[in-house]
């Protein structure tokens, strides 16, 4: 047998390929994230006209009645959404983790609701169901002579948002609850505690980190959301104000930028606050071999109450979907609990006129997903497997996109790229490619997490074995790492795809012509006129089905791959 030639061990110096990769990604993030966001912040601090640095814009902001009110409204709506979302999520989380409850699977499935339909799509349907002359109030009025202002003003936004975003709290809280070792609870029982006191003093505090993570996410999402308040005709909140200033007053008006800075600051502040509150509180206490919290059997009476509560919540949560479905088949639906008659004409119209929206959406969302997976995968590899300079900065910059709301990114692109024109004179900012890039940047942090997870599952020894057998770094990546990461990369692609497919806030600012518009934009346009509601709803149903199908399909594919690779772990 021939002797293996010994390769001198070099310090892990960065290879040219790695440096190139870092540079390309850095350039991409700089142009499409850092510079636009920086421009927005810089503009907020400069004086209109002279360009001198100043904080006078902020003083103006807080001296204007409308802006002050918008600020407080945004804080109020986000806070109340957290409260109501908690009120829905808490009983569901407790029921599924602490009791033998057959409905658990249904409740867990609710976790996907925010993924497959943006809140604004359901908002119109909610008005028909819960509005002043909606189904519920008409019935309440008939039976009891009362009306409940579910959808009046800010209430409507709070109602729609908390129904939509409560799964974030449900998922995080359930995970936390499941990670509590049963001995934590039993020790308390052994010392004489039981029932609600036990929950208040031991179980809930231990689940606090998960609750806070979910709650802060809900707060930030609601605070940044543009489309829902706009569709419900609530204009005195921050995100709508930013949009209106830029689109109606113009790109040079400083107030849009000031509001953007405040949106970013509040996002960062909320995330920081929850991080501080959670510091040193990794309470995950499940022991090896030990079980999670013990599940109690429900007595007959308790079962009835539990199923009742779950059915009620489920009905509430699904009401936007139900409403949307009804609306998409309705001829006329107003001042009556249910539509007057049913038709499929809206679908015909949508397929005839609006197939362009669907095509655009598929193209934009796939491209955005692809960009995310390529960049996310590259960053994950550079961070986890190399020592090349600057890799941490890439990770940091890509993650920072979390703090940049869609409106802000849209404004940033307009400001940065409007002046740059193509040879034929069209501004760069109005090109459909810009929308794709904005979507890709917005979804990058999530795709990046998926890529990290995927790469962490590939043991380094598998790569070393390939190199040991003579494969170069590039060939090892291609033949070993990528095939093993496929499942994770696909998962990253799907999250990016399905959320990009229904994202509206950045799109709303950047789309200039109807022929470039994706579904979300089309929906928004349809939903603004009473006559457009029917086709709008039909389009919404199509979007929901499309996203749900893609998500299901990818779950199926990922699971099959995982099974096939099961032995290779």
């Amino acid at each position, binding site marked *: 047998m021939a002797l293996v030639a010994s390769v001198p061990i070099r310090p892990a110096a960065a290879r040219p390929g790695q440096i190139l990769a870092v540079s390309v990604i850095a350039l991409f993030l700089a142009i499409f994230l850092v510079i636009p966001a920086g421009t927005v912040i810089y503009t907020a601090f400069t004086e209109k006209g002279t360009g001198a640095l100043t904080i006078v814009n902020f003083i103006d902001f807080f001296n204007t009645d409308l802006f002050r009110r918008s600020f407080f409204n945004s804080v109020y709506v986000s806070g109340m959404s957290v409260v109501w979302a908690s009120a829905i999520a808490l009983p569901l989380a407790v029921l599924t983790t602490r009791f033998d409850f057959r409905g658990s699977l249904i409740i867990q499935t609710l976790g996907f609701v925010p993924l497959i339909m943006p809140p604004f799509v359901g908002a119109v349907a909610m008005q028909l169901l819960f509005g002043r002359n909606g189904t519920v109030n008409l019935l309440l009025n008939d039976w009891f002579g009362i009306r409940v202002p579910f959808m009046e003003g800010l209430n409507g936004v709070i109602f729609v948002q908390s129904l939509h975003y409560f799964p974030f709290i449900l998922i995080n809280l359930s995970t936390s609850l499941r990670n509590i070792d049963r*001995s934590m609870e*039993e020790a*308390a029982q052994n*010392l004489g505690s039981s029932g609600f006191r036990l929950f208040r003093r031991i179980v809930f505090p231990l689940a606090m980190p998960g609750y806070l993570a979910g709650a802060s996410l809900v707060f930030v999402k609601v605070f940044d959301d543009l489309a829902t308040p706009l569709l419900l005709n609530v204009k005195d909140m921050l995100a709508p104000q930013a949009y209106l200033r830029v689109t109606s007053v113009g790109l040079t008006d400083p107030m849009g930028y000031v509001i953007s800075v405040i949106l970013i600051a509040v996002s960062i502040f909320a995330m920081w606050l929850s991080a501080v509150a959670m510091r040193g509180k990794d309470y995950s206490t499940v022991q090896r071999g030990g079980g999670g919290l013990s599940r109690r059997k429900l007595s007959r009476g308790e079962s009835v109450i539990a199923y009742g509560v779950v059915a009620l919540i489920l009905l509430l949560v699904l009401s936007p979907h139900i409403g949307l479905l009804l609306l998409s088949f309705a001829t006329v639906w107003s001042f009556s609990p249910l539509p007057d008659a049913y038709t499929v004409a809206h679908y015909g119209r949508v397929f005839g006129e609006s197939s362009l929206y669907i095509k655009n959406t598929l193209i934009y969302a796939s491209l955005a997903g692809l960009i995310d997976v390529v960049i996310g995968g590259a960053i994950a590899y550079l961070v986890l497997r190399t020592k090349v300079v600057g890799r941490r900065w890439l990770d940091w910059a890509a993650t920072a996109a979390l703090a940049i709301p869609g409106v802000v990114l849209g404004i940033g692109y307009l400001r940065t790229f409007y002046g740059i024109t193509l040879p034929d004179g069209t501004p760069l900012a109005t090109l459909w490619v810009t929308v794709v890039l904005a979507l890709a940047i917005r979804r990058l942090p999530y795709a990046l997490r998926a890529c990290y997870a995927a790469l962490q599952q590939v043991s380094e020894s598998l790569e070393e074995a390939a190199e040991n057998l003579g494969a170069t770094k590039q060939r090892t990546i291609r033949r070993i790492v990528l095939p093993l990461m496929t499942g994770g990369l696909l998962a990253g692609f799907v999250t990016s795809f399905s959320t990009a497919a229904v994202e509206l806030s950045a799109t709303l600012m950047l789309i200039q012509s109807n022929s470039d518009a994706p579904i979300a934009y089309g929906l928004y346009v349809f939903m603004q006129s009473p006559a457009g509601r029917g086709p709008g709803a039909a389009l919404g149903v199509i979007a929901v089905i499309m996203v749900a199908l893609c998500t299901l399909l990818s779950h199926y594919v990922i699971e099959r791959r995982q099974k096939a690779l099961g032995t290779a772990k």
Partner: protein
Amino acid sequence: MTVNINSAALAAGPAKAISISDVNLYYGALHVLKDINLEIQPGEFFAFLGPSGCGKTTLLRLIAGFNNARQGKVVIGGQDVLDMPPWKRDIGMVFQSYALWPHMTVAANVAFGLEERRLPRAEVERRVKAALELVGLKHLADRRPSQLSGGQQQRVALARTIAIEPKVLLLDEPLSNLDAKMRVDVRRELRELQQRLQLTTIFVTHDQEEANTVCDRIAVFNEGSIQQVGTPMGLYEKPANLFVANFLGTANILGGKIAGSGANRSFEVVGGGSIPIPSGTDVPAGAKLVFRPQYATIGSLEPGAVALEGIIAHREFLGATVRYGVRIGASTVLIDAPFHSGDALLEPGAATTLGLKPSSAQWLAH
């Protein structure tokens, strides 16, 4: 730690007896506890000893109220507790994982049970102080559990339990998360504490040395049933079956058959040799010969001993003794020979003679 002997601040009522009768428990089809019957005396330090998975924890949790046995009876201090929920039982349990709540300080952990009993604030403070003093951790009252070492956490768990002045104390493998040196110290302290509080205590362990050194009596478990109950010495000297003989210490086991009858019975060892059976000894059918390594001599015969021929298979020098493996027929027995300075050791392969007194041998069927 030093147990503070003067701390009389924690009282314990009169010690309670525990009586368990005809307990059976199933997890689905798995029969985890089989016909458990046990009487534990007031103030006794009692051990559940057995290999892991044999049901010790399950029985302990049953006493504390965490499993519902549909069959059987558990009586503590004259009171049937089986239908009582855990929080009404007043039984102190120290969990194997300690189960300290990470979101509370040491003092808050210890105060928890007292607060749940709605004791006046001053009384809570007094007892927390006393309990922490008792385990020597008063200076760490404001720390979080995550800032303590394993041994300190263990003591906090103990303090938390004894602060409520429980009727009985249950310890589930309390030493398993400590390092070897710490284990020896802590088990001695546990014993001192138990003696002073006169608390009926059940100590679960899979380590025979732990059980032997601290406990008054031991129940040996295997596969969900109690094999034998007795003092450490009693179990070692008179094991009831082969499992107990093997689990407590090292036992040599040789197969064979009974020859003769009446006063002339003897045991013909497979592979050669015959041991006269002392009169009055009960030898069940199919029984095997059992003896401890130090009860046989090697190379020489003491008066009254009978000879067994064998060949040295291997040897280990242990300092005070030399442990020889001697092949007799198809089996190998272990013999511990005392070592004296200047002794020559026997070499593997050499033929040798073992001397065994019939009075130090036993015959066990299973």
